């Protein structure tokens, strides 16, 4: 599969064993001691909170082992923590008597006297107790205990699957490790918190902390060697006592021997020898390890210093080989790229020889780069300079790769270098931006780049103004209330335009614009947008700004942002939200600022082409299967597709098969003749609420002159009555994408197939993806060199948005339509979208094809809107039936209604008239809304034997007296209720008399 596995998904599979529920077994007396000394459970929670750790465990107290066993037989616990006196049994006996189960929890003992603890701790773990601790009143002990139990359980899994690092603590004294472990955990977690705070999102931070080094406690020589043998590949360092048991007896030099074993195999491993007495410092020097005196008052500081510098959590300090004197340091990886060129050659070689760089990276959770560096030996390089160049390149490439798919945080004082996706503010990014961020991450983690090496595939640089900015903006001066009270859209817009954004936001926007010299798309991303069942697609506004006049750029941007904010309060939005049980007051808006894909052609800016790809095709033709997907693509900006205008449709699996251009007549009729571009002729243009005001609609000859028609154009020769796949013959120009789909100019079909699969896998549902493609400059159809452009330029495929596409194949189907008796009257029958049953339909608004006058399309749409309102007020949902495509922008193809105008319909039916050649409209924004909101859809082809509603059915409707009849449009009441039955699996639907549930 293409997805290599999300970085964060990989981390999510870490720590499979987590302590959530602790069963604390303590006699009343023991409990009294614990409570007296500082409320163990509460202090544990406190420890979690201090380190900002999520999900602290819950504690359940029982006072006897018997009660504990009873609880264990009924419920699930992740850890049993017993005090020495748990009534009728010892903790060890409790462990032996626990019901056998594959999920048997570990048992730890919390002793409160040293003798018991020491005695118990030297017994083998297989003897029942996993851990023995000594209660010392340290609130962090509970946390350390829980983490130590988790680590000992997870270390095998996590090292194997994610190569997490291991710190080995060799210490036999419970009293010592019970105070030392909390210290180490605390220090480790604090360092990580600090490290990851700099440039990671909250979620990523959490994931990285989960991938922190595991701490293993060995209590004797054998255990230490066992862990060392097993985990030496992952060892980050070890902290080792000098005196501990070996072969069952206390050995005063066990630590020395153990360190020698370690040194033999891992000469560079950071080791801290900690023991009592300064006299052992010499031994440490002999062994080339750091030393800490257990009795020293600044033991904590020494430990902290060791963790920070030797484990690599702090800056990387470059030192001279002979005296270890610091030469320079790099605070982080970005800084490393800056510092590396200045580090003396021999210093560099010294650190390289000792793997210091890879150790430093390991600790910071950057396993992949560390793994890349570690196997390289200094001898692999011709000289120090070659080594330096290699390191610089590796670090730089890593930064570039890491930036892909990351959501960085941006503000005027923090500009995430190289980050392609970043947020401003702390609120939600909204549905659309969330989809984009997800897509960006998916792409960064996928192998799609390797499959298409000549193509740049990435979400264009995107910034998101999070919802908190919207919230604080509309809360100021009661803007929200005033907008809600406004009488007209114009008033709403005026309110927003007279109110500036907050100074901090303006500062951030100004900082953002500093490095940006290309046109921007400013798009809405409301919290409801693009969610699976409430997509609101196309409801809000998108603005494109030229961003070309220095003194106006900020004004253009801030105005566009405020217009997106204002669109929440426009009449159409409010109607829509209201119709679907959403409150305007609950709506929150984030704003996406995205690089507009394309390039300048004179005073126009546009991509070679843009489109929408869907992983599921509701109307597969011939050999195509629904899951082969469908793509709609148009020359220039995607506005042509939003409009439902003339565009090319193809199945990515069968790109050479023309869909709507199967015949010359169809090709002439349906070929794109115009395209859209951003008008750069007036770079001072300020965005207006009507979003397309700065788009220009241009003839194909403009594209031909710009050189953009070459890849997608074709020629119709009237003399020969033939269409040729190039624009190099005389004749009428058409757009059929043959260069791209048939002649290898750009691998659009396989690339989209791969991206759709990626999206489908990632979202776990069929998806819809918007994209734009800009081919490299001077692309021309030259065999074998098709992807070549200007020097250094490669074609760009920019996925713009990913959202779930509803294509459910399950659902309530009450009637087997294939077996429906002929005697049952069908008001309508045809190809269906949606599923389930809509009952109690008594109203039909329909337009007889012979009365449809495209010239009055707009008036008709308004008339339908009035009827819709009227019916909705009466809480009556209705069937809408008419010729051609509902919701198209071109009245010649069908009635140009907007979604909110028909929001009350329960079923929308399109009559496809034979020879009309008009494709049903699924897939446009309009139909995305319909299907997501579970409005039924029928495409009725009366000329097919299988379909009904035919003109006979229409005549039946004609015979009913209409309630009203404006412009040939009729609203009739049916003599009895009907029900619409839709079967998504069979893709059939019918409207038949409603006899109540399951009564047919």
């Amino acid at each position, binding site marked *: 599969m293409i997805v290599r596995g999300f970085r964060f998904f990989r981390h999510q599979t870490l720590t499979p064993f987590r302590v959530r529920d602790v069963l604390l077994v303590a006699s009343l007396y023991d409990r009294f001691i614990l409570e007296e000394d500082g409320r163990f459970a509460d202090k544990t929670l406190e420890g979690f909170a201090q380190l900002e750790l999520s999900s602290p465990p819950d504690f359940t107290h029982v006072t006897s082992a018997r009660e504990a066993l009873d609880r264990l037989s009924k419920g699930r616990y992740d850890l049993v923590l017993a005090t020495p006196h748990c009534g009728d049994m010892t903790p060890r006996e409790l462990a032996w008597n626990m019901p056998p189960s594959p999920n048997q929890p570990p048992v730890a003992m919390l002793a409160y006297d040293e003798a018991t603890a020491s005695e118990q701790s030297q017994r083998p773990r297989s003897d029942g107790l996993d851990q023995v601790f000594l209660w010392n009143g340290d609130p962090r002990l509970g946390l350390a205990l829980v983490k130590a139990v988790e680590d000992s359980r997870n270390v095998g899994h996590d090292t194997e699957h994610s190569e997490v690092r291991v710190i080995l603590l060799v210490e036999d004294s419970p009293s010592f490790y019970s105070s030392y472990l909390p210290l180490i955990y605390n220090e480790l977690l604090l360092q990580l918190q600090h490290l990851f705070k700099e440039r990671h999102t909250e979620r990523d931070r959490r994931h990285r902390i989960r991938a922190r080094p595991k701490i293993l406690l060995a209590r004797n020589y054998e255990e230490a060697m066992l862990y060392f043998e097993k985990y030496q590949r992952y060892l980050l360092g070890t902290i080792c006592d000098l005196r501990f048991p070996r072969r069952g007896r206390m050995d005063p030099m066990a630590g020395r021997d153990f360190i020698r074993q370690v040194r033999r195999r891992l000469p560079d491993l950071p080791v801290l020898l900690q023991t009592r007495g300064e006299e052992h410092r010499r031994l440490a020097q002999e062994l080339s390890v750091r030393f800490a005196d257990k009795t020293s008052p600044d033991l904590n500081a020494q430990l902290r210093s060791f963790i920070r510098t030797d484990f690599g959590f702090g800056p990387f300090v470059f030192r001279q080989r002979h005296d270890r004197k610091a030469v320079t340091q790099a605070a982080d990886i970005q800084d490393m790229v800056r510092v590396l060129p200045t580090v003396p050659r021999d210093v560099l070689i010294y650190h390289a020889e000792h793997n210091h760089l890879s150790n430093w990276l390991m600790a910071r959770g950057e396993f992949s780069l560390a793994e890349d560096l570690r196997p390289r030996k200094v001898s692999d390089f011709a000289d120090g300079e070659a080594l330096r160049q290699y390191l610089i390149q590796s670090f730089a490439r890593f930064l570039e790769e890491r930036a892909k798919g990351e959501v960085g945080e941006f503000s005027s004082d923090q500009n995430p270098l190289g980050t392609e996706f970043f947020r401003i503010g702390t609120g939600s990014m909204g549905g659309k931006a969330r989809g984009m961020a997800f897509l960006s991450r998916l792409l960064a983690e996928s192998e799609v780049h390797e499959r298409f090496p000549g193509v740049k595939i990435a979400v264009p640089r995107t910034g998101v103004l999070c919802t908190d900015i919207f919230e604080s903006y509309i809360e100021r001066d009661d803007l929200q209330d005033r907008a809600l009270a406004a009488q007209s859209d114009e008033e709403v817009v005026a309110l927003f335009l007279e109110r500036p954004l907050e100074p901090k936001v303006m500062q951030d926007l100004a900082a953002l614009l500093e490095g940006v010299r290309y046109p921007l798309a400013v798009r809405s991303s409301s919290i409801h947008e693009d969610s699976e069942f409430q997509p609101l697609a196309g409801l809000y506004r998108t603005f494109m700004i030229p961003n070309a006049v220095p003194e106006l750029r900020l004004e253009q941007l801030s105005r566009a942002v405020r217009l997106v904010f204002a669109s929440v309060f426009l009449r159409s939005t409010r109607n829509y939200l209201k119709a679907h049980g959403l409150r305007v007051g609950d709506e929150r808006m984030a704003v996406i600022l995205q690089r507009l894909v394309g390039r300048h052609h004179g005073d126009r800016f546009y991509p070679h082409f843009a489109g929408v790809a869907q992983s599921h095709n509701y109307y597969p*033709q*011939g*050999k195509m299967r629904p899951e082969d997907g469908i793509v709609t693509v148009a020359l220039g900006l995607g506005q042509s597709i939003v409009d439902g205008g*003339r565009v090319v449709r193809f199945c990515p699996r*069968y790109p*050479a*098969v*023309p*869909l709507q251009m*199967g*015949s*010359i007549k*169809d090709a*002439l*009729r349906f*070929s794109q*003749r*115009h395209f859209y571009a951003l008008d750069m002729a007036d770079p001072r243009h300020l965005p207006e609420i009507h979003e397309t005001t700065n788009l220009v609609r241009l*003839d*194909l*000859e403009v594209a031909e002159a710009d050189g953009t028609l070459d890849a997608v154009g074709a020629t119709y*020769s*009237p*003399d*020969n*009555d*033939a*269409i040729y796949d190039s624009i190099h013959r005389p004749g*009428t*120009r058409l757009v059929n994408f043959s260069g791209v789909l*048939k002649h290898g100019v750009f691998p659009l079909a396989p690339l989209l197939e791969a991206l759709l699969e990626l999206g489908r896998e990632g979202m776990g549902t069929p998806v819809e993806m918007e994209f734009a493609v800009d081919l490299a400059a001077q692309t021309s159809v030259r065999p074998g060199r098709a992807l070549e452009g200007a020097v250094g330029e490669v074609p760009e495929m920019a996925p713009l948005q990913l959202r779930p596409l509803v294509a459910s194949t399950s659902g309530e189907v009450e009637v087997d339509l294939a077996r429906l008796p002929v005697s049952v009257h069908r008001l309508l029958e045809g190809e269906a979208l949606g599923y389930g049953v809509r009952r109690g339909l008594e109203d039909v608004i329909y337009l007889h094809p*012979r*009365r449809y*006058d*495209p*010239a009055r399309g707009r008036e008709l749409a308004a008339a339908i809107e009035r009827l819709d309102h009227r019916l909705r007020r009466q809480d009556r949902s209705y069937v809408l039936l008419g010729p051609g495509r509902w919701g198209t922008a071109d009245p010649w193809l069908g009635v140009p209604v907007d979604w909110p105008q028909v929001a009350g319909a329960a079923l929308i039916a399109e009559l496809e008239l034979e020879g009309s050649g008009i494709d049903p409209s699924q897939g446009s924004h309009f139909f995305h809304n319909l299907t997501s909101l579970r409005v039924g859809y029928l495409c009725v082809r009366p000329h097919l034997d299988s379909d009904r509603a035919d003109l006979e059915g229409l005549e039946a409707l004609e015979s009913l007296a209409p309630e009203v009849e404006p412009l040939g449009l009729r609203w009739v009441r049916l003599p009895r209720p009907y029900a619409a039955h839709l079967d998504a699996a069979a893709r059939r639907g019918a409207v038949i008399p409603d006899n109540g549930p399951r009564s047919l």
Partner: protein
Amino acid sequence: MSTPRELMDPIVKRNPNETEFLQAVDEVLESIQPALDQHRELRSAKIVDRLVEPERVIQFRVPWMDDDNEVHVQRGFRVEFNSALGPYKGGLRFHPSVNLSILKFLGFEQIFKNSLTTTNIGGGKGGSDFNPKGRSDSEVMRFCQSFMTELWRHIGASTDVPAGDIGVGGREIGYLFGQYKRLANRFDGVLTGKGLEWGGSRIRTEATGYGQVYFAQEMLATREESFEGKRCLISGSGNVAQFATEKVLQLGGKVLTLSDSGGYIFDEEGIDGEKLDFVKKLKNERRGRIKEYVEKYPGAVFTERDPEADHNPLWAHAADIALPAATQNEINGKDAQNLLDGGVYCLSEGSNMPSTPDAVNFFVAEKILYGPGKAANAGGVATSALEMAQNSQGERWSREEVDRRLQGLMKEIHRNCRDTAEKYGAEGNLVAGANIAGFLRVAYAMVDQGLV
């Protein structure tokens, strides 16, 4: 059925279930009834019985493989209906609806259409139930090659010369011709509709519009009039209308109107060459609406189509000549009256059946110069014959030469229709003239060639 039962019954009996074919036979026989009444020798030669029976029907298997290596089997046909006047000539149709009945119906009509052009071409039709829609270029090519692998042995420049039809355009003709050439090892004029560079004829696109005007010119000539200074109403704005306009301008006439499904424009100053170029660009390249004409030329007036109206106001403007070139039934009885009231006395049909039967009867009764579609738009078929002529002579004529010959053919067609009408007592009625003239040319040739 209005044909005498004794004529139709045996045909129905012999061709059961061939609805389309039977209907065509019925219509033709009805229209030639006056001739049959007069020509007893045709009756005794059983010309009708022989006419309705194709000389040869070829049906064959066309196996082909799609892009997924799946095998498909289609049915191929060639109905070689009548070769009394020359090699069988008629299109190939690739459409899922194709069956023998439909091809017999089309082939039967083709005999008379071809005959009317006064050239030496017989009648035929062919095709397959293959659906090129939704097929890739290579699939279409493989199908065409398989189709021709059987057909090639039955056709030839002097035997049977298929052309294109629905589903068979320049691309398919190319693939078919290529395979024929490979199998026969000959570069023959065995198909028409070929590419301009490899045997196709010039003026094909212009032929119908030009021919429509030439036919009108001939009708005017009978009154010793010409296009010079005449005001013309033209409907439509596609190929036929555009080239009719072009020819009218060349002949000195003035075109006042053009239309599309959204309405029509009326330009009192006349649509000159520059304006026509604008319309060509608008309709052929931008696929825009004719309404945009008035944005460019504000002197003109656009009238939106009113679907509720009982007439088309385009035909109510004062003018001399009407050249309908838009769609079927665009002139009804009321329009016909309006045309006459507006001064129109000459009407030549560029599209198929633009006038309703009411209107036709009215024109015939009023004795205006009325050129029915089957004669006035025969220019398209005629150029096929011209392509064959060029191929057989190994020549490639200039535009002017093809245009000159087209004009000659239209003149001949008109004369033939007029003379025939006169001979059968319907002077000036070119409707009757066209029907009978087409039939008689074939019938006489069959009699002359004996019982074959």
